[in-house]
């Protein structure tokens, strides 16, 4: 038994942090924030592609580094911490994992190498409006070769070259691969609370597309993709939550009121202690999720759910109380607090809201207890 990352994995995390500290500061994030025309930071993205990180958990035979999910987890934590304004999650946790889970050998060979090289930028399109996109209620349809319907919002939908789409096929659902640059596809950028990550409405009007995996098994693939993405997003959330705790702690030590640092007040001390407790709960659950993911353990459904829930809760609390700790300054555009508050909310709903994951978790516990 050994419940920590290895020295190699920690070294990778350290290198990633150093790289991002230099190449992806909040000044880079603000370049995207302050420019409505920018959907992501292509300078940062090109460097991330160069580092080969997209291929961390993609087998060498498809051009990846073939390291594994644990390595991708430590990179995800750093990307979250840095608020990286790039389509890394969409391409890596969702699109590539969907291909790995459901794609044929040919499809994987065709696409994954281009993903690693940056030629293909992927996104994952499930949502069609308010509420959890339940496969049984989808309106987007796939007839075996063509895709029709509207997906909204799709994270990175405006900059991706390809999408994996959850669509209705016959009486079931299927996962479908579609090029976004070809015919039958129109897309429109949509405005969100988190402008450093772009979102689009994508309309398919008989767009040529190919199925991933078996027809009608889309729900199973979708759930598998979500379980994978949940753990990886949880690491991004954890990275963000920890950065909020650091920011709040630093500020509380430096900011004076009533003749002493505000961090000497128990109101602040205990708030930050609560933050620490939540972040530790998230970290431990995330590690368990990482282990389940890396070993494809039967515990993955509950481990993914609990890491996602713990990390969503930790990031929400840390991001809002980081603003509160900063006081008036925390509510200004110039101070970085709100960047984390925005990102925290996006990551909490992007792969299904906490409500959905609580139900997934309890259902998994029921199945386990009945077994």
């Amino acid at each position: 038994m050994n419940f920590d990352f290895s020295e190699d994995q920690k070294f990778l995390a350290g290198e990633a942090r150093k790289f991002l500290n230099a190449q992806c500061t909040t000044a880079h994030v603000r370049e995207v924030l302050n420019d409505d025309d920018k959907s992501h930071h292509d300078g940062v993205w090109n460097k991330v592609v160069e580092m080969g990180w997209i291929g961390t958990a993609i087998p060498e035979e498809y051009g990846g580094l073939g390291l594994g999910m644990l390595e991708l987890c430590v990179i995800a934590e750093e990307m979250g911490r840095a608020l990286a304004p790039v389509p890394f999650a969409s391409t890596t946790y969702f699109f590539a994992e969907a291909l790995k889970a459901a794609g044929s050998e040919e499809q994987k060979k065709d696409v994954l190498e281009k993903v690693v090289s940056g030629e293909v930028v992927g996104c994952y399109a499930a949502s069609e409006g308010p509420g959890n996109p339940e496969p049984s209620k989808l309106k987007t349809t796939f007839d075996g070769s063509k895709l029709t319907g509207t997906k909204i919002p799709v994270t990175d939908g405006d900059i991706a070259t390809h999408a994996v789409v959850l669509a209705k096929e016959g009486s079931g659902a299927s996962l479908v691969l579609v090029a976004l640059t070809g015919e039958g596809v129109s897309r429109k950028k949509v405005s969100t609370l988190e402008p450093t990550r772009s979102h689009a409405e994508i309309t398919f009007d008989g767009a040529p597309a190919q199925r991933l995996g078996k027809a009608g098994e889309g729900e199973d693939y979708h759930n598998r993709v979500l379980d994978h993405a949940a753990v990886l997003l949880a690491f991004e959330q954890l990275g963000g939550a920890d950065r909020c705790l650091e920011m709040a702690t630093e500020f509380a030590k430096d900011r004076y009121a009533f003749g002493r640092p505000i961090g000497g007040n128990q109101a602040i001390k205990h708030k930050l202690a609560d933050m620490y407790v939540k972040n530790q709960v998230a970290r431990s659950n995330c590690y368990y999720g990482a282990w389940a993911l890396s070993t494809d353990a039967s515990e993955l459904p509950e481990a993914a759910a609990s890491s996602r829930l713990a990390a969503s809760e930790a990031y929400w609390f840390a991001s809002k109380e980081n603003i509160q700790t900063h006081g008036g300054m925390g509510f200004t555009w110039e101070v970085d607090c709100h960047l984390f508050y925005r990102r925290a909310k996006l990551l909490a709903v992007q792969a299904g809201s906490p409500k959905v994951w609580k139900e997934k978790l309890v259902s998994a516990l029921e199945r386990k207890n009945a077994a």
Partner: protein
Amino acid sequence: MDFNDTKEEAEFRVEARSFLEKHLKPKDANSPRRPSGEDFLKRAKEWQKTKAEGGFAQITWPKEWGGRGGSSMQQVIWNQEESKFDAPTGPFTIGLGMCVPTVIAFGSDEHKKRYVEKALRGEEIWCQLFSEPAAGSDVAGVKTRAIKDGDEWVINGQKVWTTGAHFSDYGIVLTRTDPKAPKHKGLTMFIVDMHQKGVEAKPIHQASGGREFNEVYFTDVRIPDSDRLGEVGDGWKVALVTLMNERLAVGGSPGPDWKEIMEYARDTGSLSDQAFREKLADWYVAAQGYSLTKFRTQTALSRGGTPGPENSIGKIITANQLQDICNSAIEMQDHYGIMNDTDTMPANALFQQSFMWAPGLRIAGGTDEILKNIIAERVLGLPQDVRVDKKVPFDELKQG
């Protein structure tokens, strides 16, 4: 104990309502929550004048200043009725609620004659200049310096979070006149003409994206000694009167409440979810607790009481509840909830807009933490925090 109007109250309510119906449109779902801009300001001034002429501006103020000489219960009734209409009142809240009462309490007869009625008639707008970059929760930590020069004072420094500074005509400004005295002892309050040379208001870009508040810079601004409010060195005493009035003013939130999220949930099919229903019950109970506490306070005021620190509970409840409601509404919409386009989103993206406002509400007018300290110390009588800054000369205090 009676929630119904007395005969006299009912008559006044009818009178108020018919006046309102004559001049305004009823509020509806499309009425803006946080209106601003030139046109709005113009409308607000006109409405204030209309109210004053109709005898409905500052109902409890004496007639000699343009008030009605009415009861505080009449003011409550007026507020209830006015809130049902699309009334442009925002720009006057701080001036009439906090600044002008301070002028009335500490100003000379000349001040009162010069300023009170004009403010009440909407001809002049006031702002409150207390907070500074290093004096937020610790309001008395102001560094803006006032130095006596003959019959005048020369002001230099920076204020922050000043609501409406860019459209205000006058302000009350808290300054440090004696840096050698302990923090609370060396302060003095002045009336300042916001249009004079050396006063510059710059909007603050908020985390929510908006620019409703200002930084105000004072550069060699000269104020005659006659525009001092209270004695030299008594500025903190004067400020406390302003802040006491603030407590009555803050608390409410323009954001969506239990009713709006209930309607939203009904429309989107979430109202049958038992987990949501229990949350809704919690929100309702706390929101009712706040509204009804305001009624209790009004009853106490109508019996001759003063607004006490117990009113601090209002903002603790409403600001946190607003944040919680908005967060829940967003999560209820799942991934879709991150979108914030007012034209296409359900409820005009009200929950998303307010989500970005809520963190500010928890800070403005006293953070949660400061308000709890006020309750603990002034209502419950618990010991003050250990204060290292009480007896030290201000300029020797550690500033970080």
